[in-house]
């Protein structure tokens, strides 16, 4: 029933998911967690919102062009955690939030995230059609519209966290022009360099997925993060074992991944 060439991939998925599951059920039961290490970019989120509040200027958030049905969807889901947090903070400080959306399917989700965050902060009336805007599903038309918003509404903080594509540089520099403080983050390898260069703070790769745990201090998320750490340590172990066995002239370990890990 199981595809023979995929046995190892399947096993990896089960093992990793199992470890993560074990870790967060343990955390939920109240097992004490060691502290999470500092991630400066995440602390900068509050700073940026604070700055915008002081200046009486809006905050801009975008999850990038990514969609919900492809392999990058994980980053979009992670991005909603940030959106939720940022929406709550802005509701608390009565700062205007502008969320711009490029993917049509992301739009209703983002609306829901922001609306619920406002309700949770007891400010549902702050939710207007201006809060979450679908600009265009055409990547470059979206960029043009965002650049227009930057020039006309002058946000003082710009958050670009999610699955970013070729629109990265245009939007990041567009925000730099108006002097907005920027926090970026993506796990998309090709766009990371631009965010690193252009933003004041940038979440690198997996840090995007750690945001929820860091900001929410929720035991499930912290536990999940601990499980992810175990998975990464296993990866390191596999590399070391693979290298050592190869040095000893035994390539079986290396080859079996190619055969069964499709």
């Amino acid at each position, binding site marked *: 029933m199981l595809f023979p060439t995929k046995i190892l991939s399947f096993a990896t998925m089960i093992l990793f998911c199992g470890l993560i599951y074990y870790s967060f059920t343990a955390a939920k039961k109240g097992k004490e967690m060691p502290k999470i290490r500092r991630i400066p970019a995440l602390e900068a989120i509050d700073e940026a919102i604070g700055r915008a509040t002081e200046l009486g200027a809006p905050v801009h958030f975008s999850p990038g062009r990514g969609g919900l049905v492809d392999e990058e969807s994980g980053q979009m889901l992670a991005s909603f955690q940030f959106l939720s947090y940022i929406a709550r903070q802005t509701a608390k400080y009565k700062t205007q939030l502008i969320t711009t959306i490029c993917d049509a399917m992301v739009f209703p989700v983002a609306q829901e995230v922001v609306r619920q965050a406002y309700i949770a902060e007891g400010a549902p009336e702050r939710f207007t059609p201006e809060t979450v805007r679908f600009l265009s599903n055409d990547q470059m038309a979206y960029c043009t519209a965002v650049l227009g918003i930057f020039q006309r509404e002058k946000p003082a903080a710009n958050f670009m966290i999610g699955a970013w594509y070729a629109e990265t540089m245009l939007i990041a520099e567009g925000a730099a022009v108006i002097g907005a403080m920027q926090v970026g983050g993506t796990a998309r390898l090709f766009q990371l360099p631009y965010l690193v260069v252009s933003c004041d703070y940038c979440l690198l790769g997996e840090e995007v997925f750690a945001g929820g745990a860091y900001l929410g201090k929720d035991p499930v998320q912290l536990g999940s993060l601990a499980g992810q750490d*175990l998975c990464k340590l296993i990866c390191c172990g596999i*590399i070391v074992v693979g290298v050592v066995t190869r040095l000893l002239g035994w390539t079986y370990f290396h080859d079996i991944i190619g055969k069964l890990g499709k």
Partner: protein
Amino acid sequence: MSARFGIYLAGIVTIALYSYLIGDNKMFKFAEHLYVGSAAGHAITMGYINIRDLGWTPLVTKGQVMLLIPILLGLCLYSRFTTKYVWVSRYAIAVTIGIGTGVGLRGMPSAQILSQLQASMVIKNANDFLAILGTLGVILYFLFIHAQNSVTKGFGRIGRWVMMITFGVGFGTSTFSMVARGTGAVTAILRMFGMVK
């Protein structure tokens, strides 16, 4: 609709959008609204065609009744225009996110973990050894909770430097294609003035 008219149309919209580089202005704003509007119209066309070809036509001509499900789910999205029934739209969202989550989960082990681990095991010379150290460094940099000690932190430091090199390379290699795209747009302007063929 001659080719000449096409060249002028392309040149004019290019100049109008490039005027943003000088500063926000009326010409850019106008072009921006034309662009966003046209793109939205085009999106409606594409959405209509998707619904028609994949949903409606097979439903009515081939009697594939199952296709009523996505059509109803799609209509559920419009509950967002009400305040009371917003939650109905969650059914459609659930299907979409379900697809994405499943596709993401199933693809990661082979494409992003095992194949990369396998590639990291090849050791033939000193360069390969350095590469392996770099990969380990980057992985250990991303430890958030467990094993926070001086060894992993030292590796993590190396990992950060390696990532900076990766980003530098990413920035450097992509400038070539960016300039290439830039020359494409510059050509549209020069062509309008007859300065290039």
